[in-house]
């Protein structure tokens, strides 16, 4: 009989924010095109550690499993990435799985990323339409603008860019690259541009764009390849212009 290949997975567990963290190791049966989500499901079906101890299924967030909902971001072998597209065959073993560290922990691999959604409120990341009743077509947009805007609007709010940013830490409420890039997106839209200055002002002050120290980790971590550093540079110029204008006009 052929020997069955095993996959060794180490998971950082924490029962609740108040409990201490610990590691558990699991040995799973390898299968083709296995990803980290399948590993976590296998553990849920048979929650026994590698040394035979019974444990609980691992708490984690997941939904679409095709890297478009943004739920399953976690640290896999130290790298912030989506668990669904993390294929076991491409990972060094033992596979180390930890929760994102820059967000409040809920349990095991589940974290609370509400901060990102609150930040979207802060910068008014929307087009302020008059109402949903029929007012005819939207403004014409050139293919060129569309091709710039569409990649920015692919942001899945996974939090990877915040996770890798050295400026996101306990001393700092930096909104992070994803949010700044959303400001660029809405300011680029003909209707959105009417409220450009409001969004730029929201990026001034504590946690605003000036917190960026240009480490450029964000752009490498983004699973959707969003040109985040380009967004930061462009929005930064606009914020300076806005600030200067405010200073000149008193």
């Amino acid at each position: 009989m052929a020997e069955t290949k095993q996959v060794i997975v180490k998971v950082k567990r924490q029962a609740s924010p108040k409990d201490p963290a610990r590691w558990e190791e699991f040995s799973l049966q390898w299968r083709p095109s296995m990803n980290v989500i399948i590993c976590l499901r296998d553990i849920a079906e048979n929650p026994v550690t590698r040394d035979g101890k019974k444990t609980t299924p691992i708490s984690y967030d997941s939904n679409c499993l095709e890297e478009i909902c943004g739920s399953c971001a976690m640290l896999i072998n130290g790298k912030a990435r989506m668990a669904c597209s993390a294929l076991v065959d491409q990972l060094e073993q033992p596979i180390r799985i930890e929760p994102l560290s820059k967000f409040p922990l809920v349990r095991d691999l589940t974290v609370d990323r509400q901060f990102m959604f609150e930040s979207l409120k802060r910068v008014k990341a929307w087009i302020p339409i008059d109402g949903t009743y029929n007012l005819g077509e939207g403004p014409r947009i050139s293919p060129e603008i569309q091709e710039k805007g569409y990649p920015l609007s692919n942001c899945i709010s996974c939090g990877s860019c915040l996770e890798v940013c050295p400026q996101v830490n306990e001393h700092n409420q930096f909104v992070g690259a994803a949010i700044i890039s959303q400001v660029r997106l809405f300011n680029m839209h003909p209707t959105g541009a009417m409220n450009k200055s409001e969004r730029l002002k929201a990026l001034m002050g504590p946690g605003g764009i000036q917190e960026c120290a240009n480490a450029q980790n964000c752009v490498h971590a983004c699973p959707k390849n969003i040109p985040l550093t380009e967004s930061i540079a462009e929005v930064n110029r606009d914020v300076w212009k806005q600030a200067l204008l405010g200073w000149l006009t008193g």
Partner: protein
Amino acid sequence: MRQPKIIVVGGGLAGLMATIRVAEAGVPVELFSIVPVKRSHSVCAQGGINAAKNQKGEGDTTDKHFDDTIYGGDFLANQPLVKRMCEAAPGIIDLLDRMGVMFNRTPEGLLDYRRFGGTLYHRTAFAGATTGQQLLYALDEQVRRHEAEDKVKKFESSTFLSAVIDEGRVCRGICAMDLRSMEVKTYAADAVIFATGGIGAIFGRSTNSVVCTGSAQSALFQQGVDYANGEFIQVHPTAIPGEDKLRLMSESARGEGGRVWVPRNPAEKRPPRSIPEAERFYFLEEWYPKYGNLVPRDIATRAIHRIVYQEKLGVDGQAAVYLDVTHIPRETLDRKLEGILEIYEKFLGVDPRVEPMKVFPAMHYTMGGIWVNGEDQATNVPGIYAAGECEYQYHGANRLGANSLVSCIFGGGIAGPAAAQYAKNLEKGAESIPSVVFDAEKKRQEEKNQKLISQDGSENPITIWREFGYIMTEHVTVTRINKNLEMAEAKIRTLQERYKKINLSDRTKWSNQTLNFARELENMLILARVITLGALARNESRGAHYKPDFPDRDDANWLKTTRAKWVNNEIQLAYEPVDISLIRPRARRYDAAK
């Protein structure tokens, strides 16, 4: 004056649209969702959204959209509301455009349109191949704006358990569980709109997201909300097989010129690109010359099954066919289909711009769902409304591609104001209902949790779910045979017995996902029986429902809506006539122009 309040359960396209409309009506709204609403399953919709804007000068009209939709649905949909939807669709596109959706554009700066299945017109507006994501974000942003103005309150880590229904059989709110604290609480409301989406998890693996279990629909069914046409399940012809999920490969790949084929020689060993044209079998184009690769999904899916199981022509002898876009210029692929091609590349490590994709059909969508009236998305229980995939109204026996997004937004847009109006008109609101009504429901749900957490058993819920999914996929999807349906139904009952002995392996009371899943599983098993019994009873073939023993549509006996009811803790099937007042049923065929 009394201030009414509305609850919306589910934050996909339909739920968000309903929420916006309620907020616009000046009524406070609470929005419940299992996941942060930006992560809802609508993000998975890829290809586009239909509206007869006739922007390619082809003479398209909303009447043609209406006819395509009714014909595509094999005449099972009630017609008047479908007509209204098709008429509203161009306005919906305008609205989304105003909200800032980054739709693809023509050189003139207008919206671009592409072709989709079941129509001969360019009627599908799109944002790359991630249209659902882009539309969901637009509505999510509008809801966030209302939230910032305190018109909307979100509960985004909360699962619906049951409706609170008073002695007069009127809905007065919901009972929900916080998925972190696991606390069970009731929330009063004058009307509740359900927009709880699809039911993919009932089939184990599907193109759906993890949260699409149908648990809410089933819970409502068990509280007396009728469920219609459950047996109509759409299996999408082109998905990438995977163990955790069957990932959708959008119809838009074919809309942009992608071709489906297999080698004519079953023993073919050459790589696909070196197989000459003459030795390729483009079976959809050959069998359906008029629509070709863009026949409706039920037709394409059955054709692929025939190629694989009867003709034994699956690629490499496996359950797979080629979906080929390699002849399309790379620039077009990247501009119009990048999102889906990236999925293929990421999960399979093969570049579909260079190598034909290997795909196979996968459970994708439920045409059936919560019964609603033909007017304003109201269910048979006063105070309960439904919109989106969770209801049955718009797609008949088969949904056309790119019609789901429009039905979500249209249905949500009707449900919102209708529920607000109902709430305003109520003489006595939820505030007048004695607390004992709410307390009793809360107690019932808490007891269920306690029992699950404390019981000792030998069964694992995930193991039951896996077996369950295999049964449903094998017997209750593409080809249905009565004796197999009977066996499947019996097996589900056996699983229901085994379910009574499940052991949760997690008895904690903080973020216990096992407990939540076990609760969903119980509901899934019941809804699966509604689907299976509906399929067993319907002795005809119509749209996605195909029985080789009854290969024809039978209008004399079966031009009727299945309406399942829960009576004395059992499923009862009733039937009602279909409103065919606008288009007379005619034979449905796609080998020639209709």
